């Protein structure tokens, strides 16, 4: 189906996300097999992860602790929880059920704050085990055309936290902001490595549309197979358009699960509501309830590091900007660098520029202290912005002291009196041009100022700061 462009302005998209994150434990949720990514297929299994008859699950304490960390960081109520069997017949789970939580999840009713201050509801965040990984072979990797399937059970039994968000998001940007913030929280508290590309963070997306100004939700579709923030945005955009077109042509939306095809840039129907799985949940008889004591919850709460939200606000206050402008820096974990530099009185705008544009690929060997003294040197005019960038790149590469590195490049700061002597000499050698600079109109002045700056730069081998040269020229022209 080719999509026309319906008038999107009449419509509102309603989005709710379900995020699965693999918890950063050493071993699996219910057995002591290793929880690790990238090993040889089927090298990290045991009777429990393979669902062999007679094997029994024993809950990993660390998984519970990390789940509580997630709950507290998302402002949830941590409660008594019970595991349940989610029954379905599929070879990614050979015992024919997945151990999950159903009516009593470990965390309920919290919220997450987007950088712009809006709070998005969290309905629940519960524990469950991951399934084996199936690769469909043949048919270009498409499920329906595969000629056979391969199964690797390394992932089977890896602890997951499933975070169910409320349908509070309204645009692809909202959805991306939500996932970025959630990812940032999970990484900060050490609950997950949050790598979407390795599948340790997976997003399922519920999308519906409604006429602007109406209260009632439309019929939703769930989109699976979203592997990056980019495809999340694209999938929502496509799906919203598809639904609007259907409604505008007088038809009704059928509740479906749909599959995002990244290559084709569209969603395909996977199954309808009637074909939806009937999971027949019931309490898992092989496990007892989890009732974390208040003392344990307090202890975990006390061990949480400052969260991205707090850090964003703290930095915004220190710089004097809105928290939306500091969220990228916090996501990159660069706020200690920013705070160090700003408390050393470095120019705030220059600090932001370096953190956002020149440190996008990581800080390498750079320390917050070195970054602070470098940006202070730039602020004081000891280094030009280009020189600062060069020194910064070298500090990232090999570390060291900014003063030394600047010196090794010959970027020694010019004494202003030394610079003034050079300016005076150049002026006396080019007195006609100087008169033209003083008496000329705007255009002439600009032209001549460029001429002088060029000569002075040449004379100083580029070590003079252009801004300071201009200042000296202007002052002298008024005398």
């Amino acid at each position, binding site marked *: 189906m080719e999509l026309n462009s319906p008038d999107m302005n009449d419509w509102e998209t309603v989005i709710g996300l379900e995020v699965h994150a693999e918890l950063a434990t050493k071993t699996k949720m219910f057995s002591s097999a290793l929880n690790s990514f990238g090993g040889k297929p089927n*090298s990290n299994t045991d*009777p429990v992860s393979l669902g062999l008859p007679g094997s029994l699950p024993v*809950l990993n304490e660390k998984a519970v602790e990390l789940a509580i960390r997630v709950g507290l960081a998302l402002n949830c109520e941590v409660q008594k929880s019970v595991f349940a069997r989610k029954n379905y017949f599929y070879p990614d789970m050979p015992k024919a059920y997945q151990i999950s939580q159903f009516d009593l999840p470990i965390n309920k009713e919290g919220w997450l704050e987007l950088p712009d201050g809006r709070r998005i509801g969290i309905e629940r965040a519960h524990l469950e085990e991951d399934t084996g990984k199936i690769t469909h072979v043949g048919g270009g990797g498409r499920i329906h055309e595969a000629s056979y399937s391969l199964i690797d059970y390394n992932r089977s039994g890896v602890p997951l936290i499933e975070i169910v968000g409320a349908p509070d998001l309204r645009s692809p940007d909202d959805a991306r902001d939500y996932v970025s913030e959630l990812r940032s929280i999970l990484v900060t508290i050490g609950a997950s490595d949050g790598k979407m590309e390795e599948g340790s963070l997976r997003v399922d997306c519920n999308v519906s549309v409604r006429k602007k100004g109406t209260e009632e939700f439309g019929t939703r579709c769930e989109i699976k197979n979203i592997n990056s923030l980019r495809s999340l945005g694209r999938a929502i955009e496509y799906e919203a358009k598809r639904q609007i077109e259907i409604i505008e042509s007088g038809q009704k939306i059928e509740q479906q699960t749909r599959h995002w095809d990244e290559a084709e840039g569209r969603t395909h129907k996977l199954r309808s509501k009637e074909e939806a799985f009937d999971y027949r949940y019931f309490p898992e008889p092989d496990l007892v309830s989890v009732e974390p004591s208040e003392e344990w919850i307090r202890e975990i709460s006390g061990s949480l590091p400052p969260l991205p939200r707090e850090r964003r606000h703290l930095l915004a206050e220190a710089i004097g900007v809105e928290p939306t402008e500091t969220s990228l820096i916090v996501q990159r974990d660069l706020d200690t660098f920013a705070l160090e530099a700003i408390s050393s009185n470095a120019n705030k705008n220059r600090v932001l520029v370096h953190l956002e544009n020149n440190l996008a690929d990581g800080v390498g060997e750079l320390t917050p202290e070195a970054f602070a003294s470098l940006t202070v040197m730039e602020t004081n005019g000891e280094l030009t912005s280009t020189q600062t960038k060069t020194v910064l790149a070298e500090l990232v590469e090999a570390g060291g002291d900014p003063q030394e590195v600047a010196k090794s490049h010959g970027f020694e700061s010019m004494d202003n009196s030394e610079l003034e002597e050079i300016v005076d000499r150049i002026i006396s050698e080019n007195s006609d041009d100087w008169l033209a600079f003083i008496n000329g109109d705007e255009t002439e002045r600009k032209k001549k100022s460029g001429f002088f700056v060029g000569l002075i730069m040449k004379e100083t081998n580029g070590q003079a700061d252009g801004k300071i040269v201009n200042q000296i020229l202007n002052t002298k022209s008024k005398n």
Partner: protein
Amino acid sequence: MVERISREEVAHVARLAQLALSEDELDAFTSQLAAVLDHAADLEALNVDDIEPSTHPFPLKNVLRVDEPGEGFEIEEVLEGAPEVEEHQFRVPPILGDS
């Protein structure tokens, strides 16, 4: 007797479990399951207002294991049970649908 479970429900549950039941088996299981449900329904006669709902027969909670690796299976051992093997993985017929 109240009909505790219909033949269609039994067929549905069998389908979910990928079980192929004959017509005779469907009849047999319908009446057997009805008897089980009848038995469970006896509990409905009891007054349980003052009893806290339980999810497990044992009064235990928080049975936890320390997060330390133990001994797992060797790959060869795991794949011994596979119908077919390719690249250290279980090779199975094409699977329709997705989990």
